[in-house]
């Protein structure tokens, strides 16, 4: 329809001029869909991402480490909530988003389908996984959708301690006993490549990226973000005396960046499709908690309704 085209053009011009889009503003249906998909995926990642770390809270090796880890996982729950809250402004309920997560229709970051057998993973996740996430999130603080951008500002502010916490854990291990050092290296070996995959497929295989960039939902391409992450992280690994598990990794003077080896895209797509080591566990755990909590949610609601009625009766009697 003619009017639609002009509305879309107007929208594009509005976004091009660096204006923010707010919930009740007109937006192309595809913009709304893209946002719901991306924000809910982001929220699910925070929520599912609690599991691999929650796994170590009861076994944290010092009380200080236990408190920090607990606070960090709590932050993740909070961040998931901020993001669900942002997505709900687009007219999709949290219930719907959770149903989509549990049915497999909605995705979450594949990194959380890898297991955390070692305490060192608590460090590596903070350092690499949160590091990679921050790379993405800092960009998203300037995303064109207002509620999403505001949620990201809050998240980035709180998240700054996560990466430092992770690096501190790895540092203590890398500078500790030989067994601890071995733990740190072994963990880095497992997480390095999945961390690079977090930025998504390479630009020539990322069909949605271009439109997202045009709408300023996204502001940097997957490959750009990945390269920035590698360039930042490699020196941090060197500082710890750890080896990045990539024989092709070397500094390229001309580009002013590190060259790196080929990512195993076969693994990447398989883990997305559900074949990662923990895909089933993560969703099973989520469904179990949700189902076991049903009677609690019902009870709270039933009580609220009774209370509301009692209040009403008291007012009408008065």
């Amino acid at each position, binding site marked *: 329809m003619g009017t639609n085209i002009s509305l879309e053009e107007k929208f594009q011009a509005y976004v091009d001029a660096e204006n923010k889009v*707010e919930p*009740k*503003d*007109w937006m192309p249906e595809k913009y709304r869909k893209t946002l719901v998909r991306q924000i809910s995926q982001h929220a699910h990642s925070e929520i599912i991402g609690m599991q691999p770390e929650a796994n170590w809270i009861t076994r944290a090796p010092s009380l200080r480490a236990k408190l920090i880890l607990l606070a960090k996982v*709590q*932050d993740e729950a*909070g961040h998931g*909530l*901020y993001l669900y*809250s*942002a997505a*709900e402004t687009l007219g999709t*309920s*949290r*219930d719907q988003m959770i149903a989509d997560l549990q049915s497999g229709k909605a995705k979450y970051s594949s990194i959380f389908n890898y297991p955390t057998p070692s305490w060192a993973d608590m460090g590596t996740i903070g350092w690499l996984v949160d590091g990679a996430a921050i790379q993405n999130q800092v960009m998203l603080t300037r995303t064109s959708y207002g509620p999403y951008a*505001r*949620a990201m500002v*809050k998240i980035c502010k*709180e998240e700054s301690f996560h990466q430092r916490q992770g690096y501190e854990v790895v540092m203590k291990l890398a500078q500790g006993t030989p067994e601890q050092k071995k733990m740190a290296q072994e963990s880095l070996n497992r997480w390095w490549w999945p961390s690079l995959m977090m930025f998504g497929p390479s630009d020539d295989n990322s069909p949605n990226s271009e439109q997202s960039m045009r709408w300023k939902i996204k502001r940097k391409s997957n490959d750009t973000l990945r390269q920035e992450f590698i360039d930042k992280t490699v020196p941090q690994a060197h500082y710890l005396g750890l080896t990045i598990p990539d024989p092709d990794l070397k500094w390229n003077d001309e580009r002013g960046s590190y060259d790196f080896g080929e990512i195993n895209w076969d693994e990447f797509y398989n883990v997305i499709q559900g074949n990662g080591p923990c895909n089933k566990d993560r969703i099973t755990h989520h469904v179990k908690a949700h189902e076991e909590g*049903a009677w609690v*949610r*019902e009870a*709270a*609601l039933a*009580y*609220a309704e009774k*209370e*509301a009625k009692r209040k009403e009766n008291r007012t009408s009697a008065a």
Partner: protein
Amino acid sequence: MNKNHWKLYEVFVRSKNGLAHKHVGSLHAADADMAIKNARDVYTRRSEGISIWVVPSDQITASSPDEKEPLFAPSDDKVYRHPTFYDIPDDVEHM
């Protein structure tokens, strides 16, 4: 509606006395009392607030963007509402 679906509440936090309550986001709760407690745990984990308001989201009446122009455009030319509209000689102080 699902029988265990909790209501959505909008949360407003006053970060310190002297400032207005500011919208910080939303959350789900079975009732308003729980919403206040949830808001404390969710939105003031780093002592960001000293006072919280919660409002059921469906109780908020919002202006529609289509009315943006009629509602807000008129004030764009009420320049007399802005202090710089008035020519006051520089040597008049504390104005």
